[in-house]
């Protein structure tokens, strides 16, 4: 249950950005979260709703795109995906494998309401 820590980090990144750009209200936040990140989306959204109250992010919808695991063998170049990360290449058996996707924890983009007369 570390979702509240993630939400605090998210607010620490986004609130200064809102102030800087004079965004009064954010409509939507798009996050990319790797499936190895052990994040429970419902818990993240609940923590976000609680912690963002009274800020320009208060009513923003949080959209989470889950990124599956991708791995690559540094020896033979084979690439694969799966539910569980592997410590050995299923092709050549090498232990020189890299996990290239699955650990993401990124803010992809925001949708912000344009301030009244600037719309367009």
């Amino acid at each position, binding site marked *: 249950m570390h979702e509240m820590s993630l939400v605090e980090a998210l607010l620490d990144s986004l609130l200064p950005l809102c102030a800087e750009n004079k965004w009064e209200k954010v409509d939507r936040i798009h996050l990319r979260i790797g499936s*190895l990140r052990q994040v429970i989306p419902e818990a993240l959204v609940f923590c976000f709703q609680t912690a963002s109250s009274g800020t320009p992010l208060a009513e923003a919808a949080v959209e989470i795109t889950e990124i599956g695991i991708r791995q690559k063998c540094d020896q033979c170049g084979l690439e694969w995906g799966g539910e569980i990360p592997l410590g050995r290449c299923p092709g050549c058996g090498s232990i020189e494998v890299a996990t290239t996707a699955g650990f993401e924890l990124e803010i992809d983009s925001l949708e912000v309401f344009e301030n009244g007369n600037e719309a367009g």
Partner: protein
Amino acid sequence: MATKRVSLIQSVMAADERYAARIRSVMKERGILLLNLIGSPGAGKTTLLEETLKRCRFSAAVIEGDVATARDAERIAAFGVPVIQINTKGGCHLEANLVLRAFENLQFDKLDVLFIENVGNLVCPAEFDLGEDMKIAVCSTAEGADKPLKYPHLFHTCSAVVLTKKDLLPYIRFDRELFWKDVESLNAKAAKFEIDNLSGDGIDAWLNTVETWLKQKRETQRA
């Protein structure tokens, strides 16, 4: 009202990553090996540290992370090494900013290895970079052999797995072969240790490896 989409593509943990990078640079500058011990409550993390401090030839310090009490710090202090207790007051893991704050009260002179004993938990501590050189997964036979596959993040990203309480094996059902097979499938590179808590058997192999890591760190520092 119209909305516009603003592309950011930045890490949620950007601030945390900066703290972790700061820790990494302090450790590199001073040639100190930083090990982050992660395991369930009762896995034997503090006992592993006690056995380590009893025998080690390097100079060590410990940062203890617990939800409450200074009990672990008191156990470590008995060995005469510098120890700082962090109480997270409910928090399920340590974060880099807490570790940096602990540095203010730590004597770094002549220090070789700094151990961080994370809050007892197999999930959250694995997520937070503390600027460590290595994450060490500590797991006891009493927890059951299914833990590696149930907690793949930690067992996939750690540099070593220490199986403790080997002395319990005659009294419990623990499929040792399955445990190591699953560790191997998630992380063939991890160093693997078994520790007998009663006889201390296995501690020497662990200590030798820590010494090797320290030597390697100092060599890369000089390079």
